[in-house]
């Protein structure tokens, strides 16, 4: 469960509370016992992990877009699975989603203005004859002029289309947004503009959001709290800045070390994980991360590590979390001793010091 920050009475009733959520697709447990809490806005919770970690499925389950196999999702204290009729319609207004690819979420045959107006009419936010005007206001709020209302999605750039998707989500005055990889289809400048827009909207509209991404730089900019997922489970969660500066789970550490950085000084020794994430239809016994973990010991192959508090407001599911943390704080990097029996595949971990760019002046010299 993600600890809530000390923020007075808000800490008492979270806006969104996910308890022991499980989602199955046939034999695959895409989400396996995940618990998360999200405070009321302005607040951002980042869900990070690789493809197949279950982060998008959690977002969809929150919106009731996929059936759950276990656990509860409560919004303002009410179980969303039990909502019916007007209460459900109210929830649909309160919680909105922005998908990764606006090409698939916007109808190519409907003009942008009409797309944004549609939910306003469906949810009776404004009278039909006022919807077009309100749509233009929403477009203006995301930085698009009124001339865009008459255009089709294909006449817009990827970043502009994503703005339209955000405007469409905002129209019904949501209190919770699920942002599912909102910028990963965009190039870096368009991405920066969308991130700035999200930062502005969260303040202007008091928004809370679940931000799903594989980019740790993005959660660093936009989320107070972050949960790291691996194979459908939360392996670590806590305050974003602390989690990134001193990861307590070997997977978080590997993920963090894989992030490309411009500043040579900011680069850390890269931890290369051997192999691919395991097959979700037959997850390994014990800790699901142990086959790829550079620090795995015998215990990890048999005993599932519980998600436990290792320092204030930090939850980690790793038997060796204390050692990882101690080492992070002493800056010992990869010094944690090999405690893995010899002959185990994937050991020792491939650790490489990443070279910085060539020193200035030598760049033109061909290396032979």
């Amino acid at each position, binding site marked *: 469960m993600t600890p809530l920050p000390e923020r007075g009475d808000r800490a008492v009733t979270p806006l969104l509370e996910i308890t022991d959520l499980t989602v199955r697709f046939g034999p695959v447990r895409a989400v396996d016992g995940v618990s998360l809490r999200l405070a009321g806005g302005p607040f951002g919770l980042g869900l990070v992990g*690789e493809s197949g970690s279950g982060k998008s499925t959690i977002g969809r389950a929150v919106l009731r877009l996929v059936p759950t196999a276990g656990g509860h999702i409560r919004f303002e204290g009410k179980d969303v699975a039990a909502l019916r009729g007007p209460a459900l319609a109210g929830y649909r207004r309160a919680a909105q989603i922005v998908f990764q690819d606006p090409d698939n979420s916007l109808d190519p045959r409907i003009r942008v203005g009409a797309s944004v107006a549609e939910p306003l009419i469906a949810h009776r936010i404004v009278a039909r004859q006022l919807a077009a005007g309100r749509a233009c206001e929403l477009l203006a709020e995301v930085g698009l002029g009124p001339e865009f209302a008459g255009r089709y999605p294909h006449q817009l750039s990827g970043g502009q289309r994503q703005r339209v998707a955000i405007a469409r989500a905002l129209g019904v005055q949501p209190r919770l947004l699920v942002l599912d990889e909102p910028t990963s289809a965009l190039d870096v400048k368009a991405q920066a503009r969308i991130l700035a827009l999200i930062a502005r909207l969260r303040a202007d509209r008091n928004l809370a959001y679940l931000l799903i991404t594989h980019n740790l730089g993005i959660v660093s900019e936009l989320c*107070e709290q972050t949960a790291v997922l691996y194979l459908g489970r939360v392996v670590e969660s806590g305050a974003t*800045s602390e989690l990134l500066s001193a990861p307590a789970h070997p997977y978080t550490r590997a993920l963090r070390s894989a992030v490309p*950085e411009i500043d040579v000084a900011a680069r850390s020794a*890269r931890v290369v994980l051997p192999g691919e994430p395991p097959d979700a239809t037959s997850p390994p016994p014990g800790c699901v991360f142990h086959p790829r973990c550079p620090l795995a010991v015998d215990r990890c192959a048999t005993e599932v590590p519980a998600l436990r508090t290792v320092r204030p407001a930090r939850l980690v599911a790793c038997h060796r979390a204390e050692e990882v943390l101690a080492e992070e704080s002493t800056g010992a990097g990869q010094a944690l001793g090999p405690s893995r029996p010899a002959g185990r595949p994937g050991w020792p971990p491939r650790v490489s010091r990443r070279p910085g760019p060539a020193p200035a002046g030598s*760049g033109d010299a061909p290396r*032979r």
Partner: protein
Amino acid sequence: MRLRITGLQVRFGERRVVDLAELAIAEAEIVGLAGESGSGKSMTTLAVLGLAHTVGARVDGSVRLDGAELTGLSQREMREVRGRRIAAIFQSPALAFSPVFRVGSVVHRALRLHGMTRTEAAAAAQRAMRQVLLPPALLDRYPSQLSGGQLQRVAIALALALRAEVLLADEPTSALDVTVQAEVLELLRDLRDREGMSVLFISHDLAVVAELCDRVAIMQDGRIVEQGPTSRVVTAPASSYTAELLAAVPRLGAGGGR
């Protein structure tokens, strides 16, 4: 210089989308070409490959490989260069394979087209798979049975099997997870060191470019606005556009979690 591009212009009718004065890549050098969508990066790749006409563009200027001019070559001659001497990998490796053929058969066919016998092709494919750290058994799988990172490695293996001297890598990691991206970057660095491969690495992400490339050229509206050693360009950009691109990269610890 292994590859030298001079005065390259790519036009669609009256519209000039690439106007590249000079870009050169030495042996065993990784050069980045960075810019936003629509800046002409990918059209430059197509022009170097002699494929720009397939999308209706007209190409002028010079592309030299080890001193020999490529732009005047016939399509038949260019086919010999393409793949064999200049290979390319793209953002979506799935598009480089056919979903109905095993990846091995796509690799074999390409090797056979470039003159290898059946046994040579099989041996070369196996060897190349090991070079990119994949079990050769994966050649028997269909593209849908491989992850994006694995498929991108198979595409790189194909370039290796043909002993290509230059690899054009057009956003090869943009669709991959960050851990997988790190592995592919490491592989490219490795191939440069071990095989002396020259790489033109095209990306919109300056952080990735800063990690990988010896030199970088920044492209805007078809022109190179700045080029130089990566460490200099990212620490002391001469062009305001480069500074904008650098500022756009999300950084760890930037917002302090707000």
